[in-house]
């Protein structure tokens, strides 16, 4: 995508331009902050949205930037969830933030090890290997005595955050906590994708052979981003365990991997906000449809998936881009500031 022989300073300028905060982004996060004060009764659901958004963000790093497809991303989500649950249950790490870091690192280790499996083969092999890894992990969680098998991991008590803020039943603490973690990790992800490293990932997604030809160490980059994505997913899973004080086999389910793909595809991959917007839409849809027919919610997910593919993925993510562009245009007129027209594109 970027011309390989462009002068270094030009490339740096482009990266800086890309990294500039746009009015749309500022508005997005202000809205997220405002939701805490304006929608206090929704905090439980909003916390779930933030966790889903983080999970989808982790997949976006892989799929949207590096072009790595995965059918088993729940493996890392579930691993993080169980690690967080186990270390809290047995009192190894009682402080939630520290436990979150530990869970993220644990998931990253698993991601690092399995990334070498994913390097081999094309899309189809990758889909099956990731699916297989998730199934193996689920089977392990199902069989081990320590994880509680099909009953789930019960009896987890989570200490107060920093020893000061205990979790409450209405989810106020949970929402602030999840949102803060999401925001911090989002900043980090933003930094990653707008760095030369992130640019090299995009070049790999565009064409691995040519990327290798201009000197990008393709395999090492893929291992790195896979590990980072796994860590993000692990933190998301750990957040879920901490805010719900429960971990069950469902965190490793195939449905969860499929859901997160759907979330990302609804929002559109490759511009970081796709996962977050997708998570909001997904939760709204779930809330609405589950009220209509609670038992058959799966049918509607399936229908959405089929429609997205048949109608065309580009068009769907195009809508959200149009929306983002409209918001940007509006903001530009209001503020009169010059924003760069480098719209994030869904390159495939």
């Amino acid at each position, binding site marked *: 995508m970027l011309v390989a022989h462009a002068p270094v300073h030009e490339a740096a300028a482009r990266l800086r331009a890309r990294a500039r905060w746009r009015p749309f982004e500022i508005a997005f996060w202000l809205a997220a902050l405002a939701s805490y004060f304006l929608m206090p009764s929704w905090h439980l659901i909003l916390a779930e949205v933030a966790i889903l958004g983080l999970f989808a963000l982790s997949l976006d790093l892989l*799929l949207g930037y590096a072009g790595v*497809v995965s*059918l088993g991303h729940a493996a890392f989500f579930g691993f993080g969830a169980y690690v967080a649950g186990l270390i809290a249950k047995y009192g190894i790490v009682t402080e939630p933030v520290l436990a979150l870091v530990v869970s993220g690192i644990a998931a990253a280790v698993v991601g690092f090890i399995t990334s070498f*499996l994913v390097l*081999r*083969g*094309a*899309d*189809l*092999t990758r*889909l*099956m*290997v990731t*699916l*297989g*890894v998730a*199934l*193996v992990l689920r*089977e*392990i969680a*199902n*069989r081990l005595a320590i994880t509680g098998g099909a009953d789930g991991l019960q009896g987890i008590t989570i200490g107060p955050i920093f020893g000061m803020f205990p979790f409450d039943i209405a989810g106020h603490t949970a929402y602030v906590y999840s949102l803060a973690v999401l925001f911090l990790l989002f900043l980090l992800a933003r930094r990653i994708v707008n760095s030369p490293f992130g640019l090299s990932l995009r070049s790999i997604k565009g064409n691995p052979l040519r990327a290798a030809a201009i000197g990008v160490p393709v395999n090492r980059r893929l291992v790195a981003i896979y590990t980072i994505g796994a860590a993000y997913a692990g933190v998301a899973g750990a957040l879920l365990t901490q805010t719900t004080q429960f971990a069950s086999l469902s965190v490793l389910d*195939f449905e969860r991997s*499929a859901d997160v*793909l*759907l979330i990302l*595809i609804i929002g559109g991959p490759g511009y970081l906000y796709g996962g977050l917007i997708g998570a909001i839409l997904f939760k709204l849809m779930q809330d609405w449809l589950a009220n209509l027919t609670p*038992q*058959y*919610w*799966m*049918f*509607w*997910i*399936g*229908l*959405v*998936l*089929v*429609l*997205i*593919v*048949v109608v065309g*993925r580009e068009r769907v993510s195009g809508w959200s881009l149009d929306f983002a562009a409209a918001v940007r245009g509006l903001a530009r007129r209001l503020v009169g500031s010059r924003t760069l027209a480098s719209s994030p594109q869904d390159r*495939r």
Partner: protein
Amino acid sequence: MLTILFDGIAYGMLLFVLACGLAVTLGLMNFVNLAHGAFAMAGGYVTVVLVNRLGVPFFAALPLAFVASALLGLLLERTVYVHVYARGHLEQVLFTIGLVFMAVAAVDYVMGSQQQFVAIPSYLQGQFNFFGIGVGRYRLLIIVICGLLTVALQFTLARTRFGSRLRAAVDDARVARGLGINVNAVFAVTFAVGSGLAGLGGALGAEILGLDPNFPLKFMIYFLIVVTVGGTSSITGPFLASLLLGIGDVAGKYYVPQFGAFAIYTIMIVVLIWRPQGLFARATAR
């Protein structure tokens, strides 16, 4: 010991009939059809309704299950699947997962979420003793039917004009088109037959595998293992893979139940890493 081997062979034969359609679709159109299990489920439920509610004899219900699933496959292939062939694998996977989810919820809505049993005739139940080996009558029936089907499939593929067209299309669809073979029509027929076989497998297997709305999700991975281990370029590859998987799974569950399904998942990953084209695939020039 030999009883386990026998049960494993029956299980493997069943898996082969269930999965061989998937192998052909994957090899022919390079299409990842995760919804293959849904057709098997359709066949199973058709049999349940025919035998239990309408009192159709079991042996008359089996061909009907085949026909029903084949028609369903043909209908879906012509209406929705055709739009997705040209897409990437990710989209195909999303699409077929969507179909599976819809099928699971729809069956749940119509038939309820409890496990269904086919009322098989009493003369097929029980075991008899054959030189000290306990032989289940129903399992023997499965081996006979599936064995005959395998021979018929192999014959069709190897000896008939349609079979040679199909093999040509699998080897290189572009050249086959250039030779005047209507690859799309070949594919539609194959898809329908593959779905029908899956339906027949679902009907036969309802007794052994268990039939409930989650069937396509539960057995999706088994079908994928058969296809990935066996390769997609021949019919003997998936056949051997099915037998290995069936015997391995039955023996594993009998001797080391604490490992559960762990072993076969690991085997799949190892095979994929070791030989992405499948264990029994011949080397292709492509």
